[in-house]
């Protein structure tokens, strides 16, 4: 292993020290130890590998994809898998399925990234404010959270998309609107335990205001449990987005969104099964990867649930 070379060894020793010399040093050391324990989890590394692969595919889509994902070739429609020049065959308009799959990874990552930005941040805001302020603010904010939690997720997303109009951005918005309440719950629970700790009292005595305490001292401590939850939620988000795409309410044609591709292939499923099968496998692989990585991250960042 490359770790055994001399400079690496000293780096390792520096990172694994029991007595960090600075704040940055301690942060790096704890990060490295977390990474080591994550690395020993084969399944989590497998998931991470798939996700890195997906990221690379999305980044270099124009270079990898053998064809333009939008160019139709009606003489060449519904070619089987392994047909000449079309590894995964072609769809009902003669478009190369592999190329569409490759470009579709961009849409999947786009949706995931947007939801992962919107929902946890909204939840974090609501949860920490509720937890820190307490009293009426807490009651009202948590009541609103409960109302959104009480809604069945997909049905609520359907209703929102109906109100906002079909499209990929609206699908993202609808999914985020249904996804934030659990984050608010988590952030509030964390805030409640942190709020009464001595160091917060100490900072408050020094004159720190609520804004400073929440943003500088409570948020950083909520992050790790939120990251775990976000990673585990990603699978659900991908499935929800694909479901909306499948219903024709997410990404609109001719966009090569995977759910929409399944919906398109559904009409020919009995004679041309690969058209709907391949994108489904892609969705499954990616959400599986997020689940595997999320499980591993939970063991590292949240040891109290570990091994259960």
């Amino acid at each position: 292993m490359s770790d055994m070379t001399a400079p690496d060894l000293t780096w390792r020793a520096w990172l694994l020290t029991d007595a960090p010399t600075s704040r940055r040093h301690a942060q790096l050391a704890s990060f490295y130890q977390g990474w080591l324990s994550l690395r020993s989890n084969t399944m989590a590394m497998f998931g991470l590998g798939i996700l890195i692969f997906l990221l690379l595919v999305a980044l270099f889509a124009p270079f990898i994809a053998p064809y333009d994902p939008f160019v139709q070739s009606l003489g060449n429609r519904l070619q089987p898998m392994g047909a000449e020049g079309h590894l995964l065959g072609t769809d009902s308009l003669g478009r190369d399925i592999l190329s569409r799959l490759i470009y579709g990874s961009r849409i999947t990552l786009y949706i995931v990234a947007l939801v992962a930005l919107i929902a946890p941040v909204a939840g974090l805001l609501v949860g920490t404010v509720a937890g820190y302020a307490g009293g009426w603010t807490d009651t009202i904010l948590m009541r609103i959270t409960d109302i959104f939690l009480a809604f069945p997720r997909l049905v609520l997303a359907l209703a929102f998309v109906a109100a906002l109009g079909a499209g990929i951005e609206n699908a993202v918005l609808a999914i985020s609107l249904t996804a934030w309440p659990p984050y608010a719950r988590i952030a509030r629970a964390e805030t409640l335990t942190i709020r009464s700790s001595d160091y917060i009292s100490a900072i408050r005595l020094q004159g720190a205001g609520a804004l400073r305490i929440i943003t500088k001292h409570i948020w950083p401590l909520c992050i790790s449990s939120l990251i775990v939850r976000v990673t585990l939620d990603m699978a659900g988000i991908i499935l929800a987005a694909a479901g909306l795409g499948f219903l024709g309410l997410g990404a609109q044609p001719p966009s090569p969104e995977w759910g929409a591709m399944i919906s398109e292939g559904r009409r020919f499923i009995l004679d041309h099964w690969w058209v709907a099968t391949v994108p489904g496998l892609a969705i499954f692989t990616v959400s599986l990867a997020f689940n595997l990585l999320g499980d591993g991250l939970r063991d590292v960042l949240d040891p109290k649930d570990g091994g259960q």
Partner: protein
Amino acid sequence: MAVTDTTEGRRRAPLVPWIKGALLTLGSVAVTMLGLLFVTFIIGRVMPIDPVLAIVGERASQSTYDAVYQQLGLDKPLLVQFLYYLWDVVRGDFGMSLLNARPVSEDIARVFPATLELATLGVFIGIVLGVPLGVIAAVRRGSWIDQIARVVALVGYSMPIFWLGLMGLLVFYGILGWVGGPGRLDIFYQDIVPSRTGMILVDSAIAGDWSVFRNAFSHIVLPAALLGYYSLAYISRMTRSFMLEQLSAEYVTTARVKGMSERAVIWRHAFRNIRVQLITVIALSYANLLEGSVLTEIIFSWPGIGSYITTALLSADMNAVLGGTVVVGLIFICLNILSDLLYRVFDPRSK
């Protein structure tokens, strides 16, 4: 438990907080329901579809338009409109469907039994397979059966349900021909048995018409197995972690030291203690099936509430969409309360 106490004061005391707790729960339920109705109301108002135009059509004169506008109460303040809406919902009036000009509530009452039948069979499969799988996985922790249970759950969490349904149809209906295709019955068997409950399996069993029953079963078995698989993934996972918690408790060690058989330790002691938590999990997964069957119903052309909402959505029939959303939301809340109440009643610790 209060029953074992002898003094008068002690016996009465636990009841008061219980009633207080129940009242608090009821209050918060009422608030949640109000919130749910408010959200659907707002969705209905920000909708890009003009409800008046949808009724009068594009060629109506301005005076007709205004008349309908007033008739719908759209000239009143938003809060007043919301109160009207509340009053309508309380009376079970969700307005008229634009598609077939029938009351939405009637439509929902007609389609709901199909969803109920499917979800019930699905959650039944989930319980029958998921609970034993979870218990065995916990008892034989780390064994091959635990690994299988882990993979089953992981795949269940990661699989797009509509795709798995399509593949199921392709293999078991298209290629093997083992099950009935989409829909609830073959056309040949339709409208033979009188509809009493709206659930064909039940209706045909009541009528004693077993050929219809068999046909209905061949149609429901695939979607129900699909939904069952999803609740199985969840139920087995939760059962396993509840059981692990119990099996590491000291009373289990004591029972084993006493020489009690392993079976008695597992089922009579550990399992008894997780029943209450299990009921909550099952209620939740039932609620999820009732709502999560939207995509399954589409794939299998199952005429339930999920297909109803989606069809209405695609044809911009807003009353139907919102009515369906409200009904599903209310059922969801009710099942949550039910599991909460069961928890209170059966678990002495929660008092």
